């Protein structure tokens, strides 16, 4: 089992779009996949047409165990389940902070899923507090979407120095370029510079595309409503890079077809 957080300390960088599309593509390879929507805005949950509701709310979530397990919903796609968001998750930060072993709570909550799933993808809210540390402690890898702008790159630097200060393993953090506008000279230049400056930059970029924004209309992963489109291809490319880099073993996915 592998856990992967799609995380950023900056908003509006394409986290949820990446989490939804990557989890869909992973499930298509036959891997039993769970996407956890930790963002109280519940966008990922919305994309999968599921009601943003956890059994017993944030309380049940923090307690972990059966309640969380029961909240999982099957999506429209084979091998892909969703742990929906809940508005009450907005106070997760504060709640964790007040608890003992406050930085390892999330890891504990996810433990019961390790048996059942090959891959768990976390769609994370914007945070750089105790929740961020919970996430980093809970996952094997974190993938940070990076818009090639000055501010975005600066925030990424902040994240890396935060991790170093808090003694988190920086080598498990990967990044890819998101919402890239190929017409902007600055985007192109910054990508070259960033690739030089940071380790763990995946050679894959997701352009800024209307097709991706339409996920809100179709409420589905891009590959479902626009297969073969540039948007679908760029996520496919990103997935293959992710798979190669951080999940090199692949899966022995048992597809439910071909049964006699």
């Amino acid at each position, binding site marked *: 089992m592998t856990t992967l957080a799609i995380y950023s300390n900056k908003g509006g960088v394409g986290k949820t779009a990446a989490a939804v599309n990557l989890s869909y593509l992973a499930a298509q390879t036959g891997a039993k996949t769970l996407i956890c929507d930790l963002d109280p805005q519940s966008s990922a949950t919305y994309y999968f047409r599921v009601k943003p509701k956890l059994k017993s709310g944030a309380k049940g979530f923090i307690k972990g165990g059966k309640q969380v397990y029961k909240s999982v919903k*099957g999506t429209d796609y084979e091998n892909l389940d969703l742990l929906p968001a809940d508005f009450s998750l907005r106070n997760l930060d504060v709640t964790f902070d007040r608890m003992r072993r406050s930085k390892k709570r999330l890891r504990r909550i996810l433990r019961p899923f390790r048996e059942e799933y090959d891959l768990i993808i976390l769609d994370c809210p914007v945070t750089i507090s105790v929740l961020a540390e919970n996430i980093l402690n809970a996952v094997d890898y974190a993938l940070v979407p990076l818009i090639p702008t000055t501010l975005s790159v600066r925030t990424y630097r902040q994240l890396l120095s935060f991790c170093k200060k808090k003694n988190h393993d920086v080598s498990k953090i990967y990044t890819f370029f998101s919402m890239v506008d190929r017409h902007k000279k600055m985007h192109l230049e910054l990508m070259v510079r960033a690739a030089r400056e940071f380790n763990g930059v995946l050679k894959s970029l997701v352009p800024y595309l209307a097709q991706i924004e339409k996920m809100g209309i179709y409420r589905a992963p891009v590959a479902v409503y626009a297969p073969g489109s540039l948007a679908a291809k760029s996520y496919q490319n990103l997935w293959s890079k992710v798979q190669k880099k951080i999940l090199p073993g692949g899966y022995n996915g048992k597809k439910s077809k071909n049964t006699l």
Partner: protein
Amino acid sequence: MINNQKFNLPDGHDEKQFIRELADKYATANEPAVVERFTIYDTFDWRLFNRSFVLYASANRLFLRKLDNTDIIHSARISSPPVFIQDFPAGALKKQLAPILKMRALLRLVEVQARSTPYRILNPDEKTVARLVFEKFWPLRHKRRPALTAHLWLRPVKGYNKYARNLVKHFQAAGLSESKQEDIFFKALELVNIKPGSYSARVNIQLEPDMRADKATKIILRFLLHVMRINAAHIEKDLDTEFLHDFRVAIRRTRSALGQIKNVFAARTTDRFKKNFASIGKLSNELRDLDVYLLNEDHYKALLPPVLREEIDPLFDYLRKKRSKALQKVIRGLKAKRNVKILQDWEVFLNKAPQDSATAHSAAFPVIDLACKRIHKKYSNIVKAGHLILKKTEDERLHALRIECKKLRYLMEFFASLFPRKKNDLLIAQLKKLQDNLGDFNDLSIQKETLLNISTQMPATLQQTPKTLLAIGSLIGTLEKERQIVKNAFAKTFTNFASPENQALFRQLFVSRAK
């Protein structure tokens, strides 16, 4: 979470009408139908079926499951239809099946085609909350035949159990019952008139203790003739080495029965067929020896030091060429008029009803008396001979003892149905341990000898390759070492076999009745 549920669809069921009715209550979406083909495999002697396995291929994957269970145990990608275990890609599937299939070829038993039409049940958010799959199976190449089965799968979506529960109610109201059908494996085979488990080379006959000995012996011999005929028909196709092997064993058993079950037929008849079957058996001696060599190729290579492993390849290439010639010889021989006539005459003789007046001394004895007498005599002889060998272990004596053990084994198998099964099986298992030791010793002796002979028979070009000769020499040395180890193990194996407990058990089973 509710599990997948399967419902029977009655004959002439209208799928479209069913969905139309469902659409009054639920929003539905359909998906394109999928057509898949499945090929079911097993060996000629049902090695997989006998262990409740079902092996099938679909698209370019192989799947293994248990009978009456649709869960896949292992699957593996294949690029061509599998025949031997060597063709399987490395992995869990190969590991599990290797000790079961061994040298036997997989045969295609039947091909079926499945058409599945999936539907999704949607909630007001157009979210899928349950899946339905209509599934129909046909035998391939039997287009006109009716479908094997048709059923409807309900596959609930996690977290939406209420929908699944309501759908079950709906199905029940529509008259569908939950399916508890037997495995489609059986239905598919039935269509092509194949009975799973129908062939086994093991002697499987039922005798009555009071039966006349000549009648009982004919039942045994008819069974052996049946095994001969079935396998002879396949030798020509050369699918694997075991058709010939089973054929030869049936001949050997026949000869043994003729020699060991004494005085049940006229002496002239017995003598004639003993000679006839000896000559048919001899036909394939060379081919079988070559088969054994080639089956052991990997084993032999492993015995060689790594530097010489490839050097032995010319020998095996030579043996392979020799084998294909030997095979042609056997095929020609089996078709030869003389040999065809032997089997025909034999069949006529076996099917002739026994005459009222006995033609031989023991013909009218109750079979159980004869069986006890023969088995016990053989056993006593073996124990005596074995003790002599313990005093002085000579190769010739070991060889003779091996033959005697084989005869005893055959007798015990022929007459197994007359004795308590558990005890008889136990004694056979004890005997088998001794036979394994003697068999290994014999194999190693023969292999060593043959290698020596082959190296002089090989074409001159090969003989001039010093490294190949070196490899053969090294192999002979290793085989000789192994042979000595096996020889030294005889004393202990025999002492176990002739233990007081085993002797008592033999007496208990076979002596009391013989008197």
